[in-house]
């Protein structure tokens, strides 16, 4: 799916055609009522159209009213179009998912212990709790938990990753997703989803925008927009009385034009598209949120709980230094370390070879009659025998037991220092003589420190969660540059930590995969469950990461922020637009009574008609012009709130103030050139 996702261009021809058709369907006032600003626009557009048509029939001048009606209808259509395009993109993504939804027959077991006895049942009618058998070549019919068997499963339909994964009963790899394919062996799966509400179904619903509910911020914004609409309604309706006193009878089309250009149609028209697109961006990152609310919460998060292993560090210990005993050259120690590790296939052993090759340029060269001495629990040593010599490496006390003597003070000091800083010292001996120590440590991923610094600038604290002892944890924490850490963390500790931080008023995001992570995932404001995790974890979180990559938490927070920024920027832009429209329309409508008010016509628009029309047309086209921005989201770079505000206020606040002056003038010039003025 990831591949499909990337392939959808911003303006795909098929999506646009479908969206154009949909934008007419969406004119249905019942569904448009959800959006107060555009609903008012539609009512007003209808009114003007009816008046224009009446004039046309009765032979009165109708061209101006009809032109305004056309402009107003365009405004409504562009708004519904914006939503339709956003939904269309989601739908295109959902189609690839839908193909995976299995309509095949599921093999429902009649007796749990008898795999031979099953009844073919349509997958869509499977009830929760039923046991089904899935064999090689079968699609898994619905979400469930493996209760018996081990199999490799191709989950590319959901994750886009084509390498099969192992699914087995018990442990953290027991969850299976409907629509994925069993490649080998068999599984007995207990169905955990109600019919029609599988993970895949929910994903389809969400990306299509069908099951979209307004998020808290959207509701608040809707109230603001509705309030502004009422304010401008009052201003326009009362203007009738004021104008009558002044000797101007204002026509309904003109009043309607004034009203629609003043109410915040731009943000009103784009609001739902922005929300759908935000969800879409998340999906493109292979993260599925269970609600728009969760995406919004991701932007608010100011504390990230990150597992050390796999997120901050590579997760296995690697060679990071050589410390020879006095009297031994570092190069001799390096050579000895290589030989002692030649037969060691563990990641630690391979990392020693790589380290020595990189640092000392020594390539492993196996002696002819070499014999590998494997690690044994008895001696706790491993190494190589060749030509009568013996190279050994192992835990410090095991090697010291072998060499039999007291270690030099320098060696003991080095070993202690390594242990204190969170690493593991290994000792190396050649023919019973101690050569020195190798430092193994958990290597922090390159670049992670810079990312944490960027997060800090955005006001997000990072907290490392680890099972290590506090000393090791502190060392890694300071190396990675996290703000806090939780050492020797049990699931209860995590839960307690989250509650404590939340009590301070912070919002917490974390990711997890195991069943024992479920309570913490549920408690966190944003809980990202790994697709590879257990069903319990997936149910508890409010997002699922299909790539099972815990570092994604950082991108998730950024996407949440980008969504909110896009919404705020376009709101500011929309409200700032109003200033210019007054200057276009006010002098035009009062030209008969107070020709002196032409002094306010700072744009020097050709005629009153062209001025009003230009404002209406600008107001409609700005919606379409901003659709790409609404879908893509405004550019986001991690920086502090003050900087972000300055930048966005300059672009969207000041830009919103100035841009329409140019836009309206341009449209007026075109209208004049076309002879409409």
């Amino acid at each position, binding site marked *: 799916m990831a591949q499909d996702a990337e392939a959808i261009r911003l303006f795909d021809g098929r999506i646009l055609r479908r969206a154009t058709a949909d934008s007419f369907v969406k004119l249905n006032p019942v569904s448009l009522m959800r959006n107060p600003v555009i609903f008012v626009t539609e009512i007003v557009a209808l009114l003007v159209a009816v008046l224009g048509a009446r004039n046309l029939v009765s032979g009165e001048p109708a061209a101006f009213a009809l032109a305004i009606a056309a402009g107003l209808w365009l405004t409504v259509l562009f708004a519904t179009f914006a939503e339709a395009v956003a939904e269309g993109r989601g739908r295109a993504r959902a189609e690839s998912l839908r193909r995976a939804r299995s309509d095949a027959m599921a093999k429902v077991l009649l007796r749990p212990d008898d795999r031979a006895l099953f009844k073919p049942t349509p997958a869509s009618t499977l009830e929760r709790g039923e046991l089904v058998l899935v064999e090689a070549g079968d699609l898994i019919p619905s979400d469930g938990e493996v209760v018996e068997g081990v199999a490799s499963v191709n989950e590319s339909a959901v994750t886009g990753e084509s390498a099969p994964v192992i699914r087995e009963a018990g442990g953290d790899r027991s969850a299976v997703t409907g629509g994925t394919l069993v490649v080998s062996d068999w599984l007995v799966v207990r169905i955990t989803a109600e019919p029609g509400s599988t993970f895949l179904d929910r994903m389809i619903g969400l990306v299509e925008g069908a099951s979209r509910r307004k998020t*808290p*911020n959207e*509701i*608040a*914004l809707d*109230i*603001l927009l*509705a*309030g*502004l609409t009422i*304010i401008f309604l*009052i*201003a*326009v309706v*009362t*203007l009738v*009385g*004021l*104008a*009558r*006193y*002044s000797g101007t009878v204002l026509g309904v089309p003109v009043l309607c034009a004034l009203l629609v250009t003043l109410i915040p149609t731009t943000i009103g028209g784009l609001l739902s598209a922005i929300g759908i697109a935000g969800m879409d961006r998340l999906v493109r990152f292979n993260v599925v949120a269970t609600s728009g609310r969760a995406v*919004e919460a991701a932007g*608010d998060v*100011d504390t990230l709980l990150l597992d050390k292993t796999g997120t901050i560090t590579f997760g296995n210990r690697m060679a990071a230094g050589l410390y020879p005993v006095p009297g031994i050259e570092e190069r001799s120690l390096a050579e000895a370390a290589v030989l002692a590790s030649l037969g060691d296939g563990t990641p630690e052993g391979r990392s020693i070879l790589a380290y020595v090759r990189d640092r000392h340029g020594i390539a492993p060269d196996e002696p002819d009659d070499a014999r590998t001495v494997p690690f044994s629990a008895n001696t706790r040593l491993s190494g190589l025998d060749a030509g009568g010599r013996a190279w050994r490496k192992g835990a410090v006390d095991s090697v010291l037991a072998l060499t039999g003597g007291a270690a030099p003070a320098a060696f003991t000091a080095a070993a202690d220092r390594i242990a204190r800083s969170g690493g593991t010292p290994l000792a190396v001996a050649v023919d019973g003589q101690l050569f020195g120590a190798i430092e193994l440590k958990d290597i922090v991923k390159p670049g992670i420190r810079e990312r944490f610094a960027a997060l*800090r*600038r955005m*006001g*997000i*604290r990072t907290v490392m969660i680890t099972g290590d002892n506090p000393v090791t944890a502190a060392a890694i924490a300071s190396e990675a540059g996290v703000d806090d850490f939780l050492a020797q963390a049990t699931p209860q500790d995590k839960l307690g930590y989250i509650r404590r931080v939340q009590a*301070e*008023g*912070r919002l917490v995001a974390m990711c997890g995969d195991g069943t024992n992570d479920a309570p913490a995932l549920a408690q966190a404001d944003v809980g990202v469950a790994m697709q590879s995790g257990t069903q319990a974890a997936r149910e508890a979180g409010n997002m699922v990461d299909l790539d099972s990559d815990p570092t994604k938490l950082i991108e998730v927070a950024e996407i949440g922020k980008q969504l*909110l*920024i896009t*919404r*705020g*920027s376009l709101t*500011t832009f929309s*409200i*700032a637009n109003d*200033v210019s429209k*007054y200057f276009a329309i*006010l002098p035009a409508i*009062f030209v008969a*009574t*107070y020709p*002196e*008010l032409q002094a*306010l016509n700072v744009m020097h628009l050709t005629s009153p008609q062209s001025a009003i029309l230009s404002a209406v047309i600008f107001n409609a086209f700005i919606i379409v012009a901003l659709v790409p921005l609404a879908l893509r989201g405004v550019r*986001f770079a991690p920086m*502090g*709130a*003050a900087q*972000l*505000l*300055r930048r*966005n206020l300059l672009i*969207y*606040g000041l830009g919103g103030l100035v841009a329409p002056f140019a836009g309206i003038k341009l449209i007026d010039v075109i209208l004049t050139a076309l002879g409409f003025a």
Partner: protein
Amino acid sequence: MTMIGWGQSLLTLTLVFACAFPLGRYVARVMSGDRSVLSPVLRPVEHGLYVLAGVNPTRGMGWRGYALALLMLNAAHFLLLYAMLRLQYWLPFNPQGFAGMSPRLALNTAMSFVTNTNWQAYAGESAASNGAQMFGLTVHNFLSAATGIAAAAAISRAFAAGNVQALGNFWADLVRATLYILLPLTLVVSVALLAMGVPETLAASAEATTLEGAKQVIALGPVAFQEAIKLLGTNGGGFFNANSAHPFENPTALSNLLENLSLLLIPFSLAIAFGHWVNDRKQGVALLCVMALLLLAFASAAYAAEAAGNPLLHALGVAGGNMEGKEVRFGIAASSLFAASTTATSTGAVIAMHDSLTPLGGLVCLFLMQLGEVVPGGDGSGLYGMLVFALLAVFVAGLMVGRTPEYLGKKVQAREVKLAMLAVLVLPLSILGGTAISLVTASGLGSLSNAGPHGLSQMLYAWTSATANNGSAFAGLSADTDLLDYGLALAMFLGRFAFLVPVLALAGSLAAKPKLPTGAGTFPTHGPLFVGLLIGVILILGGLQFLPALSLGPIAEHFAMLAGKTF
């Protein structure tokens, strides 16, 4: 415009800001019940009052309780004042023997003083007895100002703490605002005014012989004390009909400086007090800067317009600025600053006839009131009005930093936006609705004394002034009619209480929210960026809706004047 003119204005404003900082700190302390320099004297009085009234000052009230107490007190006082005005003929201290006011006028006047408006549809010295002035009107000058300060303190407390229900105790707030803030300041200012020649007597009038030998009766009364609280309480109801233009209310340039200072003092101080209340002084300074910059800009515009004068008169050979309706002893600069100050606060006292201002000068007055009286606004009402705008500004632009908007650690969500919008809606509804109705009915048109755009301005001014609880007027409008007495009383009621109740509900909602810690990701609400943003939001959300109406009034009049057209 002259250097002396600018010097006068800047001196006045500099003195205001110099006083606002220490006074703001003092206000914050006494409203929190902390000790202050006046405690030794006033503590016993304060406690005596609590004992007498059976009030426990430490008992916190939720927003509903607070609003209920506030509304009940104001309702009771409204009825009392109404009765006093109706019955003044039979009440003591009526040496002139004034008859009781008509029901219509008494209702309008009572509403006017309870709402801190002090719209005067009557002439003070010829319709209200000394008793009514002292015990009715002056008492309400204190009460309505103290009500505003109490409400401002209540909403400030909502920002200061997290997860609380109580906004404070209304009775304690009222007593403290009166006893520690309004009374001492009034005493100081009134004594200073006495020294400058303002009378304070119970005698009805003095008789004088003019230069021509004619006998003249000059009305007197307890002027100085009422003058002081009229300004400090941002009330504006003058003892005399000519208000602060009357030599007995405002005799000299020095007294005028003091009066201009007095009316700006408490509203600006409350911005500083806000910073102390929320434990972040920069926040208060930011609000003060917004208020100060807007006032400065508008006052300068008014001065420029008045100094430029009327080209139609210039053509007739009358050189110079617009002196029509101005006192020669004050001049153009002081009159312009006072006009801007009195409309920027909800005072409404005048030293020049606003009706005679140039169209742009009148526009400044109208617009400052239409912004909702927030730069700096009335005692208390200015601060809570400004906070409503601050919340809206934070909500509109706050999303731009990628977080759910928060102001001072309080999230601004659907309920807050709803209440803020409810409050803000009152202004256009009452101002534009009232004006439109008055201009299409015969009764309303009959009140006008001018034709053309100036007539529209007169009517717009009346509804604006009443709704914004200002009380100043474009003289010439006959306001004592059924439509205007009842209609403007309703406007004053809406402007005060239909704004205040949502604000208190907002305070309740904010108080109950947790106070979030601030960090690098938090929207910064101090500093020049926020000041600029808030100014923009006030002008666009608060002001733009009135532009169509204004363009048919003062703006049309201005351009017509430039074009040499009269009506």
